């Protein structure tokens, strides 16, 4: 239905037609021309804020942009009262259920809940039974997916207790809507989301077992390839907590510690976003690379609190659904306010038969969800063979399966391709413990199917999100609301930024790779220009020059054999295939493309350090580079243009970081990586180009190439006002304190930078890296440009220069290792010991 006819849209009474009327009036007021534009703005806003959702098993799935429908999902105040009460009741119920399962197990012993629903669920962690948690609500976070059926009822489709996700996306959706289409909010009295986050912060503070003044709370993420990594990083910065991966933490003295470049810092509370079975390779899944060995020992001794607690995923279990009414009756003495969709657990004979007989009309779920495989199957969408296979799987392990009724969703208006159509929707809302009960987010995250008649809605299957508006709740005036927030907000304490060792290491490598890309791109661009021009201008030494330049490029990029030991002779007459290969061949070590991938990975691992502007630069750079790689036809001009773009983007990236990353350790480490790489690459370039004694004219061109590739040609002309001569080139590139590309300048910067690093305890001795830098500076200052430029007896090389550069290289090459040992040492991984088991037969 096109927008003009919206008023005719037939919205049933339970869908709040008066609100929709107001909303569509506002939408229409934007005008037909404006709506598509705003829609683009909306998607761009999300994209530029880095809002992504990763899809597993999809090559383009990493960092897939999040899409948002301009039309929200509407819930009236009256309907919301019912929903929020129902959600709180459910959260309370799941909390009691969780406590019973890890405590007395009365529900199981009394047969109210079949044992297999719990014991056969992989999330039932026997290691956690009887562990005493020192807070009232064990279940800190709870969320539920709900749907409105065509009779206007609200049903719970899924319960989430492992590590409920989506609250950050909900917030980001709201920010995007408020920023891009503020007109739509007029007259709607949309309830705010922020009180939920204040409750969340308070709940996490409340989990600190030791009432320390300055508790450390961290968000534990599986890392950037996780589907909701964006949200982990987003919540970390929104709530002001440190974002960590398993490797950033360690257990010592049965306490959890954050490994920082300044040493170990105690962790009090972990907001867990990794699945609990992966959280401790000592006692749980041994193959986990995500966890912290010994974590359960720290939990048992009460030294750390985890939200949600370890083992909570056992109640994220559709097998529970059929038994919830009886459990509610037992634990709460009442019935469920929000019913769940009719479900049949296959561990019971009659239910199993019912499910097997009606397979093609039901949704089949496993009782345990796995992120890596779809956990729901729509029976009606399966072929006969697939149905038979499913039947066999269910029969083999009936206790692991549940059949669920297919609800008749009530469609909700959605903007698809410029038209308003009806789509099935699932909405998720969030509960967080507030002491005795639970606080519910007044809103949530709505997702709609990506096409009509597609029953299973999930982000993994593709789908569009909507902002969720709870309308007409009177929250009082803005000032009273603010006062309320201030009253509940904990005093935020200033805390010096601490840099986890892993993050520091990533930043260090971002610096190194950025510089490597930049220098390689510049040198290759220079070489390509010379090769091009030499073709045109007459030059009797053309062949020798070409060979020298190309060989220098191979040496510099370390892409042997390359031009150093060419496989074919025509590589001199046509060097382009090899030149393109060391630019674009991703699978070749040392190629620009391979370095780009390393850079890309490091950048995304340290992604919460980049500002919005930086992200824009990075995204453009990635898109352009990807296009260049995929380009079927190449010519020197187009490639030069690609390199120009890449260089400009990298310069912008480096410059933006200088402006936007805090002056504290984050920037220091990044900058140090960059400067260190610059030093090493400069030495490597000088070795590759200037050490060999050659024809004067060839040498001249090589020296010019060095100046050009280092963007120093203008400097040179300005300073020396003479032809290019080796001693002067060396003076400019080695000793000139005012040239930001000279070795002396770089070493002085590095020396200054190391002063800002945390001090490592070495009993008065100079730290190794400072000692190395001092030696390097001494060596450099002692070197005389005339002597370096003198030709020794061998005649075919500048021996002094070669020796000097070799020594310098040896010295500086040790720096990265020293830094890594001193500051990233804690970043080492965990390994399983062999099982100490040997067999025997009498």
């Amino acid at each position, binding site marked *: 239905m096109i927008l003009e006819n919206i008023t005719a849209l037939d919205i049933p009474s339970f869908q709040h037609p008066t609100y929709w009327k107001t909303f569509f009036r506002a939408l229409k007021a934007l005008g037909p021309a404006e709506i598509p534009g705003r829609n683009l703005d909306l998607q761009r806003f999300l994209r530029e804020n880095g809002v992504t959702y990763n899809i597993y098993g999809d090559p383009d799935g990493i960092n897939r942009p999040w899409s948002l429908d301009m039309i929200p999902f509407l819930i009236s105040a009256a309907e919301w009262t019912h929903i929020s009460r129902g959600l709180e009741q459910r959260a309370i119920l799941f909390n009691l259920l969780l406590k019973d399962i890890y405590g007395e197990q009365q529900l*199981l*012993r*009394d*047969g109210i809940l*079949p*044992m*297999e629903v719990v*014991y*056969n669920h992989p999330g039932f962690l*026997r*290691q956690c*039974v*009887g562990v005493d948690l020192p807070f009232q609500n064990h279940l800190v976070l709870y969320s539920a997916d709900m749907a409105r059926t065509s009779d206007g009822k609200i049903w719970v489709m899924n319960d989430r207790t492992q590590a409920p996700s989506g609250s950050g996306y909900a917030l980001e959706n709201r920010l995007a809507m408020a920023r891009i289409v503020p007109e739509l909010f007029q007259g709607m009295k949309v309830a705010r989301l922020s009180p939920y986050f204040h409750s969340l912060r308070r709940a996490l503070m409340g989990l600190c077992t030791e009432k320390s003044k300055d508790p450390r709370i961290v968000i534990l993420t599986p890392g950037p390839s996780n589907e909701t990594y964006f949200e982990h990083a987003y919540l970390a910065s929104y709530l002001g907590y440190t974002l960590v991966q398993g490797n950033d933490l*360690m*257990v*010592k*003295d*049965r306490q959890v510690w954050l490994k920082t470049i300044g040493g170990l810092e105690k962790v009090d509370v972990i907001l867990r976003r990794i699945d609990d079975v992966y959280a401790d*390779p*000592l*006692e749980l899944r*041994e193959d986990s690379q995500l966890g912290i*060995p*010994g974590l359960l*020992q720290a939990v*048992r*001794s009460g030294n750390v609190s985890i939200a949600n607690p370890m083992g909570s995923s056992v109640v994220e279990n559709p097998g529970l659904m059929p038994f919830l009414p009886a459990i509610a009756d037992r634990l709460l003495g009442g019935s469920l306010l929000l019913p769940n969709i009719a479900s049949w657990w296959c561990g019971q004979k009659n239910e199993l038969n019912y499910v097997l007989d009606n397979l093609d009309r039901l949704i089949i779920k496993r009782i345990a969800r796995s992120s890596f495989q779809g956990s729901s199957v729509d029976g009606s969408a399966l072929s006969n063979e697939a149905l038979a296979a499913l039947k066999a799987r269910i029969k*083999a*392990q009936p*206790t692991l399966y549940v059949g669920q009724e297919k609800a008749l969703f009530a469609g909700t208006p959605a903007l698809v391709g410029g038209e308003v159509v009806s789509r099935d929707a699932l909405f998720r809302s969030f509960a967080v413990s507030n002491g005795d009960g639970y606080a519910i987010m007044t809103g949530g995250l709505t997702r709609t199917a990506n096409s009509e008649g597609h029953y299973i809605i999930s982000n993994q299957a593709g789908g569009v999100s909507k902002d969720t508006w709870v309308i007409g709740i009177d929250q009082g005036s803005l000032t009273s609301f603010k006062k309320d927030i201030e009253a509940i907000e904990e005093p935020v304490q200033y805390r010096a930024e601490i840099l986890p060792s892993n993050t520091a290491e990533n930043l260090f490598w971002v610096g190194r790779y950025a510089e490597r890309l930049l220098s390689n791109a510049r040198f290759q661009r220079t070489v390509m220009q010379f090769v091009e021009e030499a073709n045109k201008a007459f030059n009797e030494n053309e062949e020798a020059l070409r060979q020298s330049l190309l060989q220098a490029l191979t040496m510099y990029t370390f892409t042997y054999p390359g031009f150093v030991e060419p496989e074919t002779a025509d590589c001199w007459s046509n060097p382009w295939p090899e030149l393109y290969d060391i630019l674009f061949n991703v699978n070749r070590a040392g190629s620009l493309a391979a370095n780009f991938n390393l850079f890309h990975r490091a950048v995304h691992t340290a992604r919460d350090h980049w500002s919005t502007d930086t992200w824009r630069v990075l995204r453009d750079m990635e898109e352009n580079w990807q296009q260049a790689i995929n380009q079927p036809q190449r010519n020197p001009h187009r490639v030069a243009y690609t390199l120009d773009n890449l260089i400009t983007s990298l310069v912008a990236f480096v410059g933006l970081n200088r402006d936007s990353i805090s002056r504290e350790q984050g920037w220091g480490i990044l900058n140090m990586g960059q400067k260190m790489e610059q030093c090493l690459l400069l030495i490597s370039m000088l070795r590759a180009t200037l050490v060999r004694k050659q024809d004067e004219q060839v040498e001249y061109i090589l020296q010019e190439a060095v100046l050009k590739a280092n963007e120093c040609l203008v400097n040179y002309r300005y300073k020396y006002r003479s032809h290019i001569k080796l001693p002067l080139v060396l003076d400019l590139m080695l000793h000139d304190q005012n040239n930001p590309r000279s070795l002396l300048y770089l070493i002085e910067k590095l020396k200054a930078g190391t002063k800002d690093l945390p001090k490592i305890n070495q009993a008065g001795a100079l730290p190794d890296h400072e000692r190395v830098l001092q030696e390097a500076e001494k060596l450099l200052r002692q070197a005389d440009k005339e002597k370096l430029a003198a030709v020794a007896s061998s005649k075919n090389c500048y021996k002094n220069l070669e020796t000097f550069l070799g020594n310098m290289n040896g010295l500086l090459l040790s720096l990265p290792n020293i830094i890594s040992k001193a500051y990233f040492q804690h970043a*080492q*991984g*965990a*390994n*399983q*010991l*062999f*099982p*100490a*088991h*040997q*067999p*025997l*037969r*009498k």
Partner: protein
Amino acid sequence: MYEIIHTTTYQYNQDVALCHNIARLLPRNTDTQTLQKSTLHIVPLPEVMNAYEDFYGNNCLYFAVQEEHSSLHVTVQTMVEKKADAFRSADQYQLYGWEQVLAEVQDVSGRYFDARQFTGATPMTEFNAEIADYARISFWPERSFFDATLDLIQRIYQDFEYRPGFTTIATPLHELMEMKKGVCQDFAHLAIAAIRSLGLPARYVSGYLETIAPPGKEKLTGTDASHAWISIFLPNIGWVDFDPTNNMRTGDQHITIGWGRDYADVPPLKGVILGAGPHQLAVSVDVRRL
């Protein structure tokens, strides 16, 4: 009375800054054995130690060495008093047909709640149609659970070859069914999977077995090892142990450390080290009758 000396040594190729370990090396008390005395010797001395009982009531010890070390040495010396099991006639064991056990264990009254938890498959005891068929040969209708199990372990003993080094702890049962070669924990896992494929309760037992020197020869030191066998549940009697590797009911020579659903619940010693890569392992076990 038995004295058991169980020594494990890990030699690392690089210094290790921190290691976490969990040992299940102290035999628990049962109807047929009592732990009299135990001494534990760990080098380097762990900074952290914590003894507790796990979910199944097995004795656990968590310990962590938190300073740089290049090897880890764990010796446990225990004295275990064995006593005879209550005498039961063959009729008593044979009283329950396996279908009846199945019905009683699965009964919702929850009378046999503790046994029922040992009826489900685990990753190490995953059964397929082939294993279920293999079980059915011994479990014919109305046969007693006891006799059917005796028959099953005898068939495993006959059909499978004992061959150390052929399988690892990660070898799945369907591969074992193909190879027909393995060691004690493979045979225990297979017997358990077969019994559980019928919905019956069986558990994995970790322990020691006393070896007896050939006549006229002196027993060599360190030639014993840890062992594994199975236990089935009979109503009114309780858990009854069988050793599929040696085709026998367990007896005086079997010393129980603990039990669980499969090996993963009761590994004698497991650990995680921070840093370092390869390492060597040496284990020696001595079981001596005093």
